[in-house]
């Protein structure tokens, strides 16, 4: 089975722009979580979705939003990008409480 896939791999945006990151979970996994990992730190929880509904939200501003589609894939949207949004954005899918992470999308905001 294919693992969690994320696109794009790398992305460069300018301050104030908007970005959409995509995630496809492992087949059979209905839950998707998003994390932000700033260089030198551990991942920080942003959102969790299960069966298309938001189940949890971390301490991130409203500029961050997400959704999950009927096929359980997910998008993370970030509006009005700031330099501090530069990070590795990780998606994880799970069937129970073991989460499987994708390779991440490296976002650079200039």
């Amino acid at each position, binding site marked *: 089975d294919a693992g969690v896939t994320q696109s794009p791999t790398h992305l460069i945006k300018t301050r104030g722009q908007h970005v959409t990151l995509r995630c496809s979970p492992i087949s059979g996994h209905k839950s998707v979580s998003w994390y932000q990992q700033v260089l030198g730190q*551990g*991942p920080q929880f942003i959102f969790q979705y299960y069966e298309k509904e*938001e*189940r949890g939200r971390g301490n991130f501003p409203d500029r961050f939003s997400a959704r999950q589609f009927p096929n359980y894939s997910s998008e993370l949207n970030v509006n009005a990008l700031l330099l501090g949004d530069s990070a590795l954005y990780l998606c994880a899918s*799970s069937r129970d*409480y073991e989460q499987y992470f994708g390779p*991440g999308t490296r976002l650079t905001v200039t």
Partner: protein
Amino acid sequence: TQLLEQSPQFLSIQEGENLTVYCNSSSVFSSLQWYRQEPGEGPVLLVTVVTGGEVKKLKRLTFQFGDARKDSSLHITAAQPGDTGLYLCAGISISSGSARQLTFGSGTQLTVLP
């Protein structure tokens, strides 16, 4: 806010040495996980510990969950260059929305020199 502190932040040792990484919190977690992350990749789950006082062994890696479920340690015996990576602990808690939320520590960057 639940926080997990890991120590040391950086560790550089010679092949064959032993090491221990610590993960501490003031909060109680329902369970705790250890991950290893390599550059350009997402974290990979190594182990989940659930019961206070639990000890799990994975080849040369030994994981322990504190009796009060607030702390954990990872001990590596006879480290090898292939053990090099970022080791992350993550506490699992249940949010108000029933989500199993992971709270990660800041990580320990381990380098094993040949």
